[in-house]
């Protein structure tokens, strides 16, 4: 079943064409990795789908509904969730509380102010299972600022998962993480995606990671999708390699 | 029917009011602009300038040079500026401590300093209002139609204009000025580029102190200074910077001008509303144009 359809999305910042006519379709349960050099428009694409910026033209169809003009909150309520490139957590709260906040929001409990949290066993249980999903259980009571960067990235993703998303968009979940930990994090994230069966869109820079874990890969360059296909297909394309090398490694 | 003389006097009052408010607001904005510190102590520096002239400066000048106008116009405000610069130097370590700390730390520390200053004034100068209006009286008055206007106020207006010019030259044409402006945009970047940020901050604090001291020194002969003045000036100064735009050099001027115009108009038409109207305008501006009427420009 089609979950997301982008129709000719355009977004210009001054003279820069961040999105220059993006059209594509995502199906339920699909995991898409987006790659491309810096400034290709990857983050702008996620920003546009999540409602952080509005496109200059084009349409966003989500589950057969036009959400081009919906607010970020409306989209979250419909199940479109994202994480950010830099760690974006609630810094004075514990790991556990970070996840709870997210659960409160997804259950629409944020207006409940007469009873303390311990009476909401449903979200407490769910928080435990999310902690388990990301293997964060032993760090649950630590302040988010006191755990390793890699773990914070995981919490960041876990916050998104707690919103019970249908479509999750992760903006470079391993960026800034020490190389040796990247595998571990990516593995945990993908496992979570598999277990929950959520549709996912992941921006990733590290080619090794992409080629090891990716299935469908989408290549962006100068605001356009220049290739879209299986990992092997993309890996073999010399043209793409040149662009990626020019953009990332040069 | 409004006579021409009346109009002239009112415009003249507006210029005078603008000059005085500008001299208070510009330092407040300078420190906020560069250090992001809301300096509640600033009005105390202005008041210290006033006290210095009344309690020290004029006495020194008269005992050394006798009662003659020109030295009385020029020297006491400079003494005031010097004293306030010294006071700024003394409290400077606190400003270094505060920069980068939360709003609440800044509010607490600068308010604590304000309280301390008020008592220091009392300790040194006592409880009676002080004044030193020799220069104001000797400068005499000009006749405008049926009205008289004090010449001294013209001197204050001109001095403020000259200060604006000098300040502009300093900020836009000198190296330290460029560094100050750069720091106000992005202090980390400025530091990364190899500038001695601590020196820039020191210059900023001293410059703000200098302006406040000079402002107080220029203002005093036309008024008096008393305990509690800094606390009263504080809220007014805030309104000025809110109307003009927080941290904006141009905004200091715009805010001062608008508050002066508002005062003159309300006092002419409905004097009961003076204070309330100024606050209400500040609220309206915060509601509809939170960057202030200075156009949101930093400089």
């Amino acid at each position, binding site marked *: 079943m089609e979950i997301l359809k982008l129709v000719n999305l355009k977004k210009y910042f001054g003279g820069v064409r961040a999105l220059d006519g993006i059209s594509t379709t995502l199906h339920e349960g699909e995991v898409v990795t987006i790659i491309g050099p810096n400034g290709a428009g990857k983050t702008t694409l996620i920003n546009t789908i999540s409602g952080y910026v509005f496109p200059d033209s084009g349409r966003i169809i989500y589950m057969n509904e036009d959400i081009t003009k919906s607010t970020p909150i409306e989209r979250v309520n419909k199940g479109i969730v994202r994480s950010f490139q830099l760690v974006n957590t609630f810094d004075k709260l514990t790991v556990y509380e970070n996840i709870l906040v997210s659960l409160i929001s997804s259950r629409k409990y944020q207006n409940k102010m007469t009873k303390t949290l311990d009476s909401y066993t449903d979200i407490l249980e769910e928080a435990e299972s999310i902690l388990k999903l990301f293997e964060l259980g032993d760090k649950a009571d630590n302040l988010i600022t006191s755990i390793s960067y890699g773990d914070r990235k995981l919490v960041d993703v876990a916050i998104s998962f707690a919103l019970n998303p249908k479509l999750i968009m992760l903006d470079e979940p391993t960026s800034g993480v020490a190389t040796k930990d990247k595998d571990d994090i990516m593995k945990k994230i993908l496992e979570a995606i598999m277990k929950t069966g959520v549709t996912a869109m992941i921006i990733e820079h590290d080619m090794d990671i992409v080629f090891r874990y990716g299935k469908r890969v989408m290549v962006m360059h100068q605001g356009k999708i220049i290739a879209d296909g299986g990992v092997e297909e993309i890996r073999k394309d010399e043209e793409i390699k040149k662009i990626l090398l020019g953009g990332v490694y040069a | 029917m409004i006579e021409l003389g*009346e109009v002239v006097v009112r415009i003249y009052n507006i210029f005078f009011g603008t000059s005085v408010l500008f001299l208070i607001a510009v330092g407040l904005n300078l420190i906020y602009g560069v250090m992001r510190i809301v300096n509640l102590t600033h009005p105390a520096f202005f008041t210290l300038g006033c006290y210095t002239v009344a309690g020290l400066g004029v006495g020194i000048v008269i005992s050394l040079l006798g009662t003659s106008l020109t030295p009385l116009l020029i020297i006491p405000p400079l003494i005031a500026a010097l004293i306030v610069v010294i006071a700024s130097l003394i409290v400077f370590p606190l400003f270094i401590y505060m920069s980068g700390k939360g709003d609440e730390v800044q509010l607490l520390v600068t308010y604590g300093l304000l309280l301390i200053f008020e008592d220091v004034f009392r300790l040194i100068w006592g409880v009676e*209002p002080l004044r030193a209006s020799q220069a104001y009286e000797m400068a005499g008055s000009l006749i405008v139609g049926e009205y008289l206007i004090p010449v001294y106020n013209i001197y204050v207006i001109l001095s403020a204009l000259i200060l604006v010019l000098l300040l502009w030259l300093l900020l836009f044409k000198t190296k330290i000025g460029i560094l100050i402006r750069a720091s106000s945009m992005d202090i980390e970047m400025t530091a990364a580029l190899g500038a001695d940020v601590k020196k820039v901050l020191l210059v900023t604090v001293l410059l703000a102190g200098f302006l406040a001291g000079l402002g107080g020194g220029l203002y005093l002969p036309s008024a*008096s200074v008393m305990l*509690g003045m800094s606390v009263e000036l504080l809220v007014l100064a805030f309104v000025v910077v809110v109307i003009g735009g927080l941290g904006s050099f141009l905004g200091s001027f715009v805010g001062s001008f608008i508050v002066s115009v508002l005062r003159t108009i309300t006092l002419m038409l409905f004097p009961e509303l003076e204070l309330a109207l100024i606050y209400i305008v500040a609220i309206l501006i915060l509601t509809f144009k939170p960057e202030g009427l200075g156009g949101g420009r930093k400089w």
Partner: protein
Amino acid sequence: MSGKTGRRDFLKGLVGGLVAGAVVGVAGTELYRGIAAPPPPAVKEPVPTTPIKAGIQAYLTGGGAIWGKPMMQGAVLAIEEINERGGILGRKIEYVVKPETSPEETVREYRTLVLDEKIDFYVGLISSSNTPAVGPVAEELQKLSFFVDGCTDFLFESVVPDPRFCFRITNIQSADGISAALGAIKLLNLMEKDKVRIAHIHPDYAYGRNAHAHMQITFEKVLGKDRVEVVYEAFPGLFKVTDFTPYITEIIASKPDILASSLWGADVVNFYKQALGYGLFDKMKFVSCIAHAASPAEAVKDFPDGHIAGVHANYFFLYPEWDKYPINKAFVENYYKRWGTYPDSPAEGAYVAVYMYKTAVEKAYEVLGKWPEVDDIIKMLEGMTIYGPAGPIHIRARKPNKHQCYKDGIVGLSKYDPRYGFSVLTNPVVIPISRITVPEGWEGTPDPKAGTLAYSWIRETWKEGVLPV
């Protein structure tokens, strides 16, 4: 002027035994009222030797300090004088000073004075906001309290209509505005004018509003409503404004004959200084009810000559004339010797308050033969008349304004005096207080807008076009 005659009668009767500097309590006919007049006991019980403790509360910071400091000095001077002469019946007086600030904090400090410091009596307060706050607390804690100022009519008309423990020394607030207006009418010959254009500038708080209302109704009644025209009114916040130039311009532009004002402290300094530069004083007469009242050496140093100088209807140190009234001379000299400055209205008020206590205790001791309880002291105070530096001062025993002190008001013309180096009050007009205040037993209701009985009383009982003094 009956006020002066009364004073001369007294002076004639003043015996030579009067010690210069001592304030002598004169037992009026009412003094023994309330005590079943027993013959003075033959044997007097010994007086405790422990010191008496006085609590003083005065503005020590902010714009009010210009009143608070002399008030404290007046009280301290009286205490020191008394101690020098052996105290009250041999008991020395100790004192504790606390700051007067906002009503909330003032009440708190008052309570500390009474409950912790265990003072025997209290002298203090300048602000009209603080007496209504402290008054009920004084009644509640049953502590004999002399309020020096804070003269709002509101205190004894509605807040504490039936006081036992609190007394107030300076004249009631309404008397202030009324006497200034009457003084202006007399000294400026306003009765002869066809039309009087009036501008007003008062501080925006209870005192300024009160002065405005009472000056205005006095002008309207005495001159006739048709002959008075208000051309401008402004109420700058108390000590909130330092640049008065826009006000000055508007006042000049409205072309008044007189400018009625109750600005005081730094406000009056700023105002007249700036007004001089704009030539305001050449174009109109300034009628102030208070400018010369506190710290005149600071407040009105080079005030222009020939304008109405008000002293809050209380006291100016040159009057009563020193040669005719040695109590004042001695007070001024002692005060100057002790503090290096001339006394003013708050200093005199606090000074008198301490002596009132002394006099009442001594009189009660004479009658009872033992150190009196507070109730006995109060009985002595009610209806008492004593002679202070400003002349005779009478404490009311009956409503309205029971426990309010009354003395003749004084208004004059300003004149710079090189002997003192500041502007003084000359050509004094003494306003007999009985002519301008609600008589004892008068039953009316306070005017709803002006809020005072005095206002209703003038509106209802004064004849239009007649000068009552």
